[in-house]
């Protein structure tokens, strides 16, 4: 008598293998940018992000706003005085800018319009959901005039640059990101280098020749040689600078001028 093996449904791994191969393909292949899907997805998710961030800010901001209510009138008066003072100063500044431009023109300077940029206020509505890259999502996109590689700053200094634009939002790569590099200069000695991102909100300045004049505490700002960032935006100050006997370059640690953990509003340089 021939023994019959009991029927057992065999597990199919075909779909799983296909999914694994597709995932692998997506991760390592040239379709990294997912054709044009990324901006579309960013546009779809924007309303959700906006609603969530608005609710979150409303919930977390209300108790503080109520507690600060009594100091608001005093603060309002102080700010009004400050605005009046700054408006007056601005008038004289405008005159100085015009005079500066006129004089530069007469000296045949070619970079007259270097400081003429428009600042677009933007709100931070999210952060990239990946731990290794420091990418912020702002609520201003191509419809507001934001373009790829636009610089982003706050009043304390440089924040980063725009790396992806969708109609209603854009992604900003912080200067502390490991992928970021900024042409920079020491404001005192005018020595050039490249500021690159490191982890835990650190910056490192590279390619400053060992023979240059570098001091701890020196301010570092964007250099005129940069093709992305306008000149003179503060980046940070030198925290540590060291070099070995046979080193060609300094090893410089830079403390960022901006506290990136508390960014809520930024300015995009148009």
């Amino acid at each position: 008598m021939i023994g019959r093996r009991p029927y057992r449904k065999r597990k199919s791994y075909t779909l799983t293998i296909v999914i694994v191969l597709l995932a692998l393909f997506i991760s390592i292949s040239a379709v990294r940018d997912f054709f044009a899907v990324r901006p579309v997805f960013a546009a779809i998710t924007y309303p959700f992000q906006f609603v969530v961030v608005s609710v979150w800010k409303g919930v977390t901001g209300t108790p503080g706003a109520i507690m600060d209510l009594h100091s608001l009138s005093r603060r309002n008066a102080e700010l009004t005085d400050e605005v009046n003072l700054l408006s007056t100063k601005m008038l004289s500044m405008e005159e100085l800018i015009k005079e500066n431009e006129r004089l530069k023109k007469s000296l045949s300077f070619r970079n007259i319009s270097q400081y003429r940029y428009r600042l677009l206020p933007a709100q931070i509505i999210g952060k990239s959901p990946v731990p290794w890259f420091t990418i912020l999502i702002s609520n201003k996109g191509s419809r507001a005039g934001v373009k790829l590689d636009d610089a982003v700053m706050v009043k304390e200094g440089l924040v980063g640059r725009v790396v992806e634009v969708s109609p209603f939002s854009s992604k900003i790569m912080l200067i502390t990101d490991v992928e970021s590099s900024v042409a920079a200069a020491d404001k005192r000695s005018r020595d050039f280098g490249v500021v690159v991102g490191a982890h835990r909100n650190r910056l490192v300045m590279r390619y400053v020749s060992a023979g240059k004049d570098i001091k701890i505490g020196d301010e570092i700002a964007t250099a005129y040689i940069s093709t992305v960032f306008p000149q003179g935006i503060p980046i940070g100050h030198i925290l540590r600078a060291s070099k070995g006997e046979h080193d060609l370059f300094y090893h410089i640690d830079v403390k960022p001028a901006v506290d990136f953990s508390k960014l809520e509003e930024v300015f995009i340089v148009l």
Partner: protein
Amino acid sequence: MTFLLASIYILVVLMFQAVIFARLNLFGVVPDLILVSVIIYSVFNSQQRSAIFSAGAGLLQDLLSFGVYFNTIVKVLVSLVVNLLKENFMGNEFVFSVVLVVVFTPLSRLFEIGILYFFGRARFDCYFIITNAILATVYNMLFVPVLFPIVKRISHA
């Protein structure tokens, strides 16, 4: 229906991760709610269903990211291994999920670091890797009790 619920769930979790937990970070470390969800979903569902769920969730996470896109492959591999492990498991599913999160959070972080290192995209010091892995594990573990009943309900819908 399950597909729709799962899609909405992934989108909501992603939004929470990108908007709220980006602000509520633990010494700069944010939880990976998608990883926790993938693990719990894989505990309750077949290999094929969890592979589709993890691929979709990872892909959406990659779409929101910028840089190296390895969330899809990491999540799919995690769901595969969870499905292999659960065949030999008998016991409480909640405890199993917690154990899996404790095991897979540092492993997935190390895997990602390995990929970044391999592609020459980033160098990390040991202190950063260890603290990041520990904090991420603790943070992810805290979310298992929150996400477990939701994912269970979606799985049984």
